């Protein structure tokens, strides 16, 4: 009996110490570690700088865009999404910001980014007449689908991603079915990557959805196609195209909406002024991000490895994000 009560006592002391520690740091939160490389890199860089430089405690929580957004909005955690692509959650995000449940800590954590339809460099080399997406859509025969070679394959966005709905709408808007195309659902990011990588490595023609900054875009020098039509207004995009064919009956052809990436935080973190200041200054130049992603891919680096390499090699960039003593702390911790 004594033994049991002693162990319970030790247990309590242990927990007391644990909770004491977390109260003492006063800067403890969860951060979304989203499941694509640039977001992972960013989350790990943030974690390293905030922990080593500012003495915070940051726990990384894996998750995809929609799931992360929903739990942030409903449960208030994770408290930070470092790289949230807001297009797919535009309306609920706006509502959440108006209601004071979420805040933007940075409106452009990465420069030069975007989503759209890409082709392999070999496609353009063989077909210099392709100037825009509209030109490509006339030639489905050059992009034969594996499962039905009489049709052209357009590789859309993985099932359940926000962009899946937009691609389905655009597929209808450009009347691609009538022109002889089929929309291939790659099922997952692994599927989409494999499909593009295989085409790029073998020099095949490939038309599909992708986004930058990403290592694959940088590595295979993929070409973003101009849509050949202007952006047909945010009304058309936000309340029709991005809602998918079930809601959007008459989508108008449109260029891809300008991608907006934000660092989103909950009210808890908004009170942490140092952290907010850091987020507002933390901007990755697009080419640096691309080169880091190619490095991570070539070396099969995990997020934390990439973060350390970034901090080691790009001191001139991140030193401007933080006060001097913080930079000193981070440098010593490397």
């Amino acid at each position, binding site marked *: 009996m004594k033994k049991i009560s002693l162990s319970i006592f030790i247990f309590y002391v242990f927990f007391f110490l644990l909770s004491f520690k977390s109260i003492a740091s006063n800067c403890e939160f969860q951060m979304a570690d989203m499941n694509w490389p640039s977001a992972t890199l960013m989350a790990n860089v943030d974690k390293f700088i905030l922990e080593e430089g500012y003495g915070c405690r940051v726990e990384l929580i894996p998750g995809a865009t*929609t799931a992360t957004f929903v739990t942030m909005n409903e449960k208030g955690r994770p408290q930070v999404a470092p790289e949230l692509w807001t297009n797919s959650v535009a309306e609920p995000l706006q509502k959440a910001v108006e209601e004071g449940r979420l805040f933007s800590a940075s409106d452009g954590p990465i420069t030069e980014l975007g989503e759209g339809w890409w082709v392999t460099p070999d496609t353009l080399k063989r077909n210099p007449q392709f100037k825009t997406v509209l030109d490509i859509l006339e030639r489905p025969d050059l992009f034969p689908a594996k499962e039905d070679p009489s049709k052209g394959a357009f590789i859309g966005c993985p*099932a*359940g991603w926000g962009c*899946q709905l937009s691609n389905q709408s655009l597929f209808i808007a450009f009347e691609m079915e009538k022109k002889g195309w089929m929309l291939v659902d790659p*099922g997952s990011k692994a599927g989409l990557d*494999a*499909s593009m990588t*295989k085409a790029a490595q*073998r020099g095949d023609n490939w038309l599909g959805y992708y986004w930058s900054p990403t290592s694959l875009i940088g590595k295979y020098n993929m070409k973003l196609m101009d849509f050949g039509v202007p952006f047909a207004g945010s009304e058309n995009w936000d309340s029709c195209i991005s809602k998918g064919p079930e809601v959007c009956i008459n989508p108008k052809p449109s260029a891809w909406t300008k991608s907006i990436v934000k660092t989103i935080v909950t009210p808890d973190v908004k009170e942490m002024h140092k952290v907010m200041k850091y987020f507002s200054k933390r901007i990755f130049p697009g080419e640096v991000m691309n080169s880091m992603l190619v490095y991570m891919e070539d070396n099969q680096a995990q997020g934390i490895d990439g973060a350390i390499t970034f901090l080691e090699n790009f001191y001139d960039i991140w030193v401007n994000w933080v006060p001097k003593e913080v930079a000193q702390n981070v440098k010593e911790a490397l």
Partner: protein
Amino acid sequence: MIDFFTEFPEISRSGLRDIKNAIDNAFRSFSRSYGESIENFFDPLLWFLIWFEKLLVNTPWPIIMLIIASLCYLGSRNWKLPLAAILTFTLIGYLGMWEDTMSTIALISVATLLCIIIGMPLGIWMARYDRVQKTLNPLLDVMQTIPIFVYLLPVLMLLGIGKVPGLIAICVYAMPPIIRLTNLGIRLVDKDILEAANAFGADSKQRLIEVQIPLALPNIFAGINQTIMMALAMVVIASMIGVRGLGIPVLQAIQNQYLALGLMNGLAIVALAIIFDRSLQRYGERLQKYNAGHKND
């Protein structure tokens, strides 16, 4: 010295990176030089899968229902199962999942068939030679536990996304039970009975076909049951590499927290599993009874 005990002595970062890079580059060049021909090798299988799926999707639904009900009846010799099947499929069709269900049935039936055709002989082989069992067992362990995308990525690089990699993923995961249980069933056959068969002058082929397999049937059918269940459990994974079917809406539902959509498609997968399994199990039971009766004559 303390460091040695607290930090595991590990290979240097650059050394590890070189190993990883070497493996990756070797595979990349392999894929570039042989990818095309490996793809061509699997093309007939792909055509068959596409043909079968088209057949199921394009056949008018009443005919499909009739075929399914009669297959269920042939399997079970009982009116309950066909009735349940018709009810289930009516519900599936009514809820708008007909086409996805047909795609899934096409893939799963080919996968199950393939697993049985390859798995049963392997199980028999394993039961006859201890050495084969010793070599195959760890391999089966690998097949059942290795995270799917670990071997799927190289397959995707070679074959691209689509049905064939999906079929491979399903078979790798779903084949071990039929192999293991065939092996087990045959090994569990009573030694005395085998001796009796020997005494009647049965050669090893007769012994296998007339004695061992019939007596192992309960275990073999348990293996088939597991194979079907595991194949259907892999439907969602197959959809992650671009296979059409009930898995796609499930993925959509998971990503977006669409409870109803996920539940409906998930339950449709369950329903398929149960219908598949029950008809085969009843068929198996009748087979055993027939065998038993046959011997008493």
